[in-house]
């Protein structure tokens, strides 16, 4: 039913995927429009917060502290979650996580699950694994539903269907829900989705959810959302399986005070999420409340069986890297995607991973083995807009540069490295810059070397309109001015000699 997931292992390089995206005029228009709208809303609700910078700093400190003591808080979470009636599972990697979830779904006796938005399940491509195991997943987040019905792939971590406009969504609903007469107003689409999903909510007894936060102090899990479909998944089914990266933990319940201000404003430009669900353990865990069993039945609003799968999937490796570690502070608001001029041109699919945009450019190469995502750290002009909006102050440009260094080290290692064209040029230039004499010689040589490429324009100025090899990317859309006859340093010397 759903299309093949985004898999960094098989994805084309960013420049190649981006080139394909550049041809999709409608997609690029949709992405730019949607990110414009969200950015404008975000700017408005952030500007009304006098303590926004202090909040960001608090968010950063909470996340940094958590990562420094992650082992402690994970164990605390496990103990408190278990005490409340939950069952905690640990998954080393994607394969193990999929196996655990499939086993739990089967044990629940269901061959279908309702799902509420979880990028973590996209990360491990859970849906196709469920289908292969004979279990049918139904996405219930509106955007995820659109993606699933359209056999598409998410292109944004908060607004996965942001690359689709309303008319395209209507067509998907008409076709997949068998509603040829469906109107195109937002309420028509919402009604169609509501009818379609309500039947699933009432029928399917097993749910799979993601988590925005795990709270160590209480063993509770928090999901924030806009539609309430998540709450249906969290309260109606008998079995709830939550899957979360180990980075999702927060030390104290009180820390939500900071996070639940930072997240909605950064993500969707809302002051508060319409639905903030926090659940701890299972219904009926507090059997000592003095109620007769029958009386308690009327109060049921949560699962009777609750599992949490805590997934590592390379996160401890990121944790072990001092410079890359701040990547794990991410609270998945997507603000960096909306503001990124690169993402705004390409949309999310070009990143070949469920995590797109600036955060994807640093997260994906660290979650995957680097050679699957070598081009991603370079998918940025280092303009710094992502760092400026990040609610927990992840210095994304700094991490990008750190990862570029890792890529270079990988590419220049061994014998093959000796033949790396870029590395050769870079090393040669570095050698030139280490000596004034060599630098001057290179400046002279440059003027000679460029001569065959220079053409005179109507004003008699020399311009280069075509460059060979690696540099050809420049002349694709830009000319390059001829080098001046005299460098600054030559002028400076001449000036000194003339006694001015």
């Amino acid at each position, binding site marked *: 039913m759903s299309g093949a997931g985004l898999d960094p292992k098989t994805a084309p390089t960013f420049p190649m995927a981006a080139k394909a995206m*550049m041809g999709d005029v409608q997609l690029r228009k949709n992405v730019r429009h949607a990110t414009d709208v969200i950015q404008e809303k975000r700017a408005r609700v952030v500007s009304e917060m006098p303590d926004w910078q202090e909040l960001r700093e608090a968010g950063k400190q909470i996340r940094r502290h958590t990562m420094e003591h992650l082992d402690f808080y994970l164990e605390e979470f496990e103990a408190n979650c278990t005490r409340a009636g939950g069952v905690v599972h640990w998954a080393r990697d994607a394969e193990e996580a999929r196996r655990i979830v499939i086993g739990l779904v089967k044990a629940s006796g269901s061959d279908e699950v309702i799902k509420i938005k979880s990028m973590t399940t996209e990360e491990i491509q859970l849906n196709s694994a469920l289908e292969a195991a004979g279990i049918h997943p139904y996405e219930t987040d509106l955007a995820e539903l659109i993606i699933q019905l359209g056999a598409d792939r998410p292109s944004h971590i908060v607004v996965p269907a942001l690359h689709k406009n309303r008319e395209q969504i209507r067509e998907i609903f008409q076709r997949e829900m068998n509603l040829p007469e469906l109107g195109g107003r937002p309420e028509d689409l919402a009604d169609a989705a509501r009818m379609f999903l309500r039947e699933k909510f009432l029928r399917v007894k097993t749910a799979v959810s993601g988590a925005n936060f795990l709270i160590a102090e209480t063993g509770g899990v928090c999901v924030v959302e806009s539609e309430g479909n998540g709450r249906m998944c969290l309260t109606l089914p008998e079995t709830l399986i939550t899957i979360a990266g180990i980075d999702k933990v927060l030390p104290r319940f009180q820390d939500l005070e900071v996070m639940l201000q930072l997240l909605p404003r950064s993500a969707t430009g809302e002051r508060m999420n319409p639905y903030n669900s926090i659940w701890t353990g299972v219904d009926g865990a507090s059997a000592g409340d003095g109620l007769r069993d029958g009386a308690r039945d009327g109060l049921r609003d949560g699962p009777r069986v609750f599992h949490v799968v805590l997934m590592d999937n390379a996160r401890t490796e990121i944790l072990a890297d001092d410079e890359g570690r701040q990547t794990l502070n991410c609270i998945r608001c997507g603000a960096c995607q909306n503001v990124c001029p*690169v993402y705004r041109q390409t949309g999310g699919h070009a990143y070949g991973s469920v995590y797109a945009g600036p955060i994807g450019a640093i997260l994906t190469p660290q979650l995957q083995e680097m050679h699957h995502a070598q081009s991603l750290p370079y998918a940025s002009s280092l303009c*710094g807009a992502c760092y400026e909006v990040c609610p927990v102050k992840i210095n994304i440009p700094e991490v990008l540069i750190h990862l570029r260094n890792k890529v270079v080290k990988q590419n220049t290692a061994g014998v093959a490295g000796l033949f790396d064209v870029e*590395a050769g040029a870079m090393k040669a230039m*570095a050698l030139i810059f280490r000596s004034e004499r060599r630098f001057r010689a290179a400046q002279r040589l440059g003027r000679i070397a460029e001569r065959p490429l220079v053409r005179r324009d109507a004003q008699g100025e020399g311009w280069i309109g075509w460059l060979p090899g690696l540099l050809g*990317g420049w002349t694709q859309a*830009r000319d*390059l*001015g001829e080098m001046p006859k005299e460098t*600054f340093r030559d002028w400076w010397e001449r000036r000194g000699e003339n006694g001015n």
Partner: protein
Amino acid sequence: MRVSLFITCYNDTLFPETGKAVVRVLERLGHTVEFPQGQTCCGQMHYNTGYQAEAMPLLSRFVEQFKGAEAVVVPSSSCVAMMRDHYPKMALAIGRVELIAEVDALLPKVFEFSEFLTKRLGLEDVGAYYPHRVTYHASCHGLRNLVLGDGPMRLLKAVRGIDLVELQGLEQCCGFGGTFAVKNADVSSAMLAEKTTAVLNTKAEACTACDNSCLMHIQGALHRQRTGVKTVHLAEILAGDEGALR
């Protein structure tokens, strides 16, 4: 004041007029200007592309050339950002105690050109005359890493004869990003197209900035499209001579 110039490798080679303009403005303001001859490059291109090891010796070289300076002025926001953001960390990585101390002592004396005028000297009017319609592009590094704020705009507003028009999407990257323009040529070109459209919409004769790397990028497209619109470094506008009024 005795001002040492770091003109940067690409300004030296490709945009000598910018360096000359910096000299003209500073001398007009009564300062003594020096140009340490052994200077070459700050190492930004290497560092940002992932060749950190190659950038390290350039840090030592920079410190060697400028450690006695009273003030270092650099007409390039991205090179100054490179120094402020990465030199302390690089010095620590190199691990030579005296180098770490020298970098710490030197960096507070390093200024981007417009920053030197507005923040160090406290000036807005530097006595310039430039009778043209101009729009200003805030380079990302100047805007975000150096937090130049409205400093360059205040300098421009004080220029006699200038017709200053605001650029739409001022804070948007032009798409240069050093090797990004070559490695991701398609995306870079699309970002550039948005920028040049904004520039053309202002009907300005010239687009200015505090960084010739952005301007080289923007100028490259403006020339390719045969628009006739020029780019000019802020220093060259500020060097425009009052004498021309007479």
